[in-house]
Structures are given as structure tokens and as C-alpha cells.
């Protein structure tokens, strides 16, 4: 019988001593459960196109040293720096506003930690997001964000996730957001890296939106080519809450983000936007699921992938309309642009509908740059490179423009410009 690859044992021995006891216990419980857990293979449906990039070698098991900081982008809002998953208070600017609690996991007392331990891991379907459990078994710190009812965070909260690749190892950033009734906030998560040794980042963010809460989450994946990145975001939405997500990602040796949204209360709505750009031999895989569990919810999802060179982008979007979810509105659109013959894009939009009075649509296309448009632009004296950049940007402009934070838009645009400078270099 062929042996099954398991999560390597060295990944499951670290202790996490900085954490309060209830969270240490939670970690231990997950570590024990993972001992016999097989790693996804290409036969695992939701890892079919990406398992070959998932190389969990023993050297990645080491805990990366914490407390390392570097140069971080200046932001106007609140900023919290997490170095290899551990909050660096001296580099951070915490919000000090009534009704807003932002705490390190490490600073929680036993009662608070007990409450949190019961709330963690509730938003993600662990049968399909297998590696989120590895985060739960390994996080050394984390950030708890609680918004009291009606609290409105007056500026965006930036989380700078810094990973240092001076040595091999892994980091497990963990964020938990509890947005109380009718509260509002914008959360920006920016993933950065330094160094050149292979490192693994396994990040989990959970958001609980109570009745009427509005949360906008922006995620920028800007790590370097030494970083294997796995991320999962779980969202629970109660009645009349609104969740908006903007994910902009650049490829790497492994990039996987699972975004799972549960619409649990009537009138809840979500909008999920995503842009992925890959080049060289990079990879990026977005898996999203939206569960309409109750009637009268809306979901709107728009993802665009651009793959250059020999890179590989994957999109899988699943919308599940449960039997009771009458009068659901769901719209999913995924468009893909292949910039070279060697690039690969796999897309899988899925609609599963068990209610009979719903409005649902989904569409996916894969195409190349339009030769007629290209000819039109160059016939006006625009150089071929610039013309291709214009057309490629045109493909994602709409989504970049929708990012509600200017500073994030600028960062994304700057990185996109760098991508374009390197692309289309053929004579």
C-alpha cells in the first residue's frame, strides 16, 4: 500500500509558551489531531491544481524568530506590526477609542483566553481548509479585535504581516475580529517579507459580523519568491451585515487563499473582489465559498487572474444556496487573461442551488490580449510594451479602483507597475 504523506512531525512539536494556558491547550488539541492528518494531494479535489506546489519540508517546521522589524510602509491609520506572526508593540500604533478593543493573544488573561478559545475555528470548514488547523496548532500570538455595538473605527486598521526569511522556518499569523451589532471597521492586511531563505506563512483570519455590522477587509499579498503562502479567511455574517473583501495578490512558489463566507442572517450581503497576477514560474490559487443559509441574502463576487510566462493561476468559486435560502441573489464572475502560451489558468465556478426562488448567475472566461485593440493602440504611436500594459491594466482597473483605501490602491498600483515593467519584454 502506498504511504500517505502526513503533516511532518517536526511541525507538531513546538509549544507556544507565550500564550495563556487556554490557548496553549487549544493548540495542543489541534496538534494532536493533526498527527494522522494526510496532506492534500492532487487527488484532493480542492488541491487538485496546487498540491504540487505544497512542499512542506522539515526545514520549514522551525519557528521563525519573533520581534524582528524592518522598514514598514507609512500609513495614516492605525498600524499593528506582526513579525512572523507575533505582535511587535513598539512598532505598532494601536487604536485608542471607546468601544474598540485590540489585544494581543499573549496579553489575554485566562478568562479572556477561555472565551476566545471557544470562538476560534468556528468560521472555517476545516474539512476543506485542511491547513488552517496547522495554524491553530502553531500560532504563537495573534490579534483579537472586538468592536462593541455601534462602535465605528474612525480610521482603517493596518496589519503589517512581516515575515523574515533570514533562516528557514514558518510563521502563523492569527487574527480574530468580532464586530458587534452595527459596528463598522476597515481592516487592511498587508503581507510582506524580507530575506531569501524558504519560509512558510500560514495565516488565518476570522471575522464574525453581528447584526448590521459593516466590515471591509483588504488583503494585499506582496511576499517575495522565498515565501510559501497559505491563508484562510473565514467570515460569519448575521442579519443585515455587510462584508466587503478586496484581495490583491502577486504570485509565489505557493500562494493559496481560501475565503469562506457564511451568510447566516436574513439580509446579509457580501461583495468579494479579487485580482491575481503571476509571472515567471509563480503560482496563485484562490478558493472561495459562499454559503447562503437563509433567505434574502446577496452575494457579488468578481475575480480576475492575469498569468504571464510559465505561471499558474487557479480560481475556484463555489456558491451554495441552501434549501431555505429563498430569494437569494448571487452573482459570480471570473475572467482570466493569459499573457503567454506557457501560462496556465484553471477556473472552476460552481453554483449549487437547493432553493427554487433565487436569482443566480455565474460566468468564467479565459482569453488573451485582443490583437485588434493592440493594433489600434500602436497605430497611434503607442509603443507595443505600453500598449500591452494599458490593455492588461484595463482588465483589472475596475477592481483596483474599487479598493476603498487610497494608500492601499497606491501600493497595489506600484507593485502592478513593477510587474508590467518586467512583463512584455520581448522585442
Amino acid at each position, binding site marked *: 500500500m502506498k504511504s500517505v504523506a502526513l503533516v511532518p512531525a517536526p511541525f507538531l512539536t513546538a509549544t507556544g509558551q507565550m500564550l495563556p494556558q487556554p490557548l496553549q491547550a487549544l493548540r495542543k488539541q489541534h496538534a494532536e489531531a493533526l498527527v494522522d492528518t494526510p496532506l492534500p494531494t492532487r487527488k484532493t479535489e480542492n488541491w487538485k491544481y496546487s498540491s504540487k506546489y505544497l512542499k512542506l519540508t522539515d526545514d520549514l517546521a522551525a519557528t521563525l524568530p519573533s520581534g524582528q522589524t524592518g522598514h514598514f510602509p507609512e500609513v495614516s491609520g492605525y498600524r499593528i506590526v506582526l513579525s512572523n506572526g507575533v505582535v511587535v508593540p513598539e512598532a505598532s500604533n494601536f487604536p485608542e477609542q471607546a468601544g474598540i478593543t485590540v489585544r494581543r493573544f499573549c496579553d489575554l488573561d485566562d478568562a479572556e483566553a477561555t472565551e476566545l478559545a471557544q470562538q476560534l475555528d468556528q468560521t472555517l470548514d476545516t474539512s476543506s481548509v485542511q491547513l488552517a488547523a496547522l495554524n491553530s496548532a502553531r500560532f504563537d500570538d495573534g490579534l483579537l479585535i472586538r468592536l462593541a455595538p455601534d462602535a465605528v473605527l474612525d480610521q482603517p486598521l493596518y496589519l503589517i504581516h512581516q515575515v523574515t526569511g533570514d533562516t528557514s522556518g514558518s510563521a502563523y499569523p492569527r487574527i480574530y475580529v468580532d464586530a458587534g451589532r452595527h459596528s463598522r471597521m476597515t481592516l487592511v492586511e498587508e503581507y510582506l517579507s524580507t530575506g531569501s531563505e524558504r519560509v512558510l506563512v500560514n495565516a488565518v483570519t476570522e471575522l464574525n459580523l453581528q447584526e448590521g455590522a459593516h466590515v471591509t477587509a483588504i488583503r494585499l499579498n506582496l511576499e517575495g519568491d522565498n515565501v510559501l503562502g497559505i491563508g484562510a479567511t473565514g467570515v460569519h455574517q448575521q442579519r443585515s451585515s455587510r462584508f466587503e473583501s478586496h484581495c490583491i495578490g502577486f504570485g509565489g512558489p505557493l500562494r493559496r487563499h481560501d475565503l469562506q463566507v457564511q451568510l447566516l442572517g436574513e439580509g446579509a450581503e457580501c461583495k468579494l473582489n479579487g485580482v491575481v497576477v503571476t509571472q515567471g514560474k509563480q503560482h496563485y490559487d484562490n478558493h472561495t465559498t459562499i454559503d447562503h443559509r437563509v433567505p434574502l441574502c446577496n452575494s457579488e463576487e468578481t475575480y480576475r487572474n492575469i498569468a504571464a510566462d510559465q505561471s499558474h493561476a487557479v480560481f475556484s468559486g463555489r456558491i451554495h444556496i441552501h434549501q431555505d435560502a429563498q430569494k437569494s441573489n448571487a452573482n459570480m464572475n471570473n475572467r482570466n487573461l493569459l499573457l503567454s502560451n506557457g501560462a496556465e489558468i484553471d477556473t472552476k465556478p460552481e453554483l449549487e442551488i437547493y432553493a427554487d426562488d433565487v436569482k443566480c448567475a455565474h460566468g468564467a472566461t479565459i482569453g488573451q490580449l*485582443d*490583437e*485588434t*485593440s493592440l*493594433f*489600434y*493602440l*500602436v*497605430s*497611434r*504611436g*503607442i*509603443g*507595443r510594451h*505600453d*500598449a500591452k500594459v*494599458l*490593455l492588461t*491594466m*484595463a*482588465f*483589472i*482597473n*475596475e477592481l483596483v479602483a474599487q479598493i476603498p483605501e487610497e494608500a492601499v490602491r497606491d501600493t497595489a498600483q506600484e507593485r502592478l507597475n513593477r510587474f508590467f515593467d518586467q512583463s512584455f519584454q520581448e522585442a
Partner: protein
Amino acid sequence: MLSIKNLHASVEDKEILKGINLEIKAGEVHAIMGPNGSGKSTLSQVLAGNDAFTVTEGEVTLNGENLLELATEERAREGVFLAFQYPVEIPGVSNLQFLRTAVNAMRAHRGEEEMNATDFIKLARDVSRQVDLDPAFLKRGVNEGFSGGEKKRNEIMQALLLQPQLAILDETDSGLDIDALKVVADGVNALRSKDRAILMVTHYQRLLDHIVPDFVHVLAGGRIIKSGGRELALELEERGYGWLGIRDEDTADHSAN
């Protein structure tokens, strides 16, 4: 200025142009007329450098320079401008961004400094008014959601902005009502200058009531079969292409578009 000698061109191994000879001097306006499928659009596209067409024989020079050796964008920078019969819609690229990139590419080629955004917006607004386009269109995607007439006016606006040496107008009158036709014609007449040559490709003579050509050529079956002055167009209008012995089956059945 423009010299075409024995030009043969084909698409997918089918020969469309079968030996075109044409000389255009600076300051002249030439009209090329012909039935559908005669090769008019192919000639326009070949001159602009669309590589969907292969030149198999002959030569084309602009001010003595071999045009056929230049890439499309280089031809544009040397002063070739093609007003498209079917201008392309490019959602996601704003007209403003498109026009400014084009103008600055030309300026860079001439060794001039880039035009800044403020100056350019002012220029673009002025020129858009000249062709009766609401300047608000500058913020929209290139030709996105434009009516046929607006697209044609946008083409003429681009010519006015880019100030080409040789302006080729491919069926610029098609799809225009009489008011729009007049606006477009005014724009083209504004382009007329002793330093510039204009080549108009058209099926109908009505455009020539508004833009009076110096020479008229009849293209059929990939060759120019008759040349003359303005009166040739009027005669064609009156007597039809049949007068010159052109039957539909004589003409190439593949048009550029």
C-alpha cells in the same frame, strides 16, 4: 510624400492588392473609391502596418523612407495616421489616458518633453469641442458605448491631436447622418494643410461634397483602374461602378473588415 509602387498584399494566402501604384504629394487630398471588397480597406490597413496582411511585392515610401520596414507604432510616429472604419472599443482604458499616452509617445519621438496632465486635459477639451464631442467623454473608456458617429468624431479628434503627415481616412463617412457627416468633414478640412497629405477611402461620393479631393482613383479587384479629378467621383455617382465595367464577381470577395 507617399509613394506606392506595384504593391501586392495578401491575407491568409489570398491576394487582395494586385499591384497598386499611387503618388501623393504634400498638400494633396486623394480619394480612393470602389465597390465593397475591392481592397480599399486592405490598402489602408497595409499602409498603417496591420500585420494580419502580408506584403508580397512592391514598395511604399513616406518622404523617401521605406514604410514597410517600420513597425506600426514607428509608422505612426513618422506621421502615418489611420482613421479606422470600425474604431475599437477598449473598456478599462480611458480616452484621456489613451490620448495622452499617444501624444506623449509622439512627443518623445520628436525629442520633446512629455505634456503634463493639466496641459493635456486643456488641449484635449479644446480639440474635443472642435469635433463636437462632449469633453465628458474623455473620462469614459476608449470608444466605450459610443455611437457610430461619436466613434468617427473621436477618430478625427485623434488626427487633430496627433497632427499626422499622412492621414488615411477609411470609410469615415459610413454610418453618419448628415449633421455628423458635416462635423466630421469640418474636422478633416481643418486638417488640410500644404504640409499634409490626406487619403480618403470611401464607397460613396457624398463625403466628397464636403471634403473636395484633388484626385480621385477607382480601385477594383485590387488595382487602380481609373484616376482623374473630382469630376470622376461625380460621374461614378451618376453612372455607378458598372459604367467602368466592374461587376461584383470581378472584385475580390474579401474585405479587410
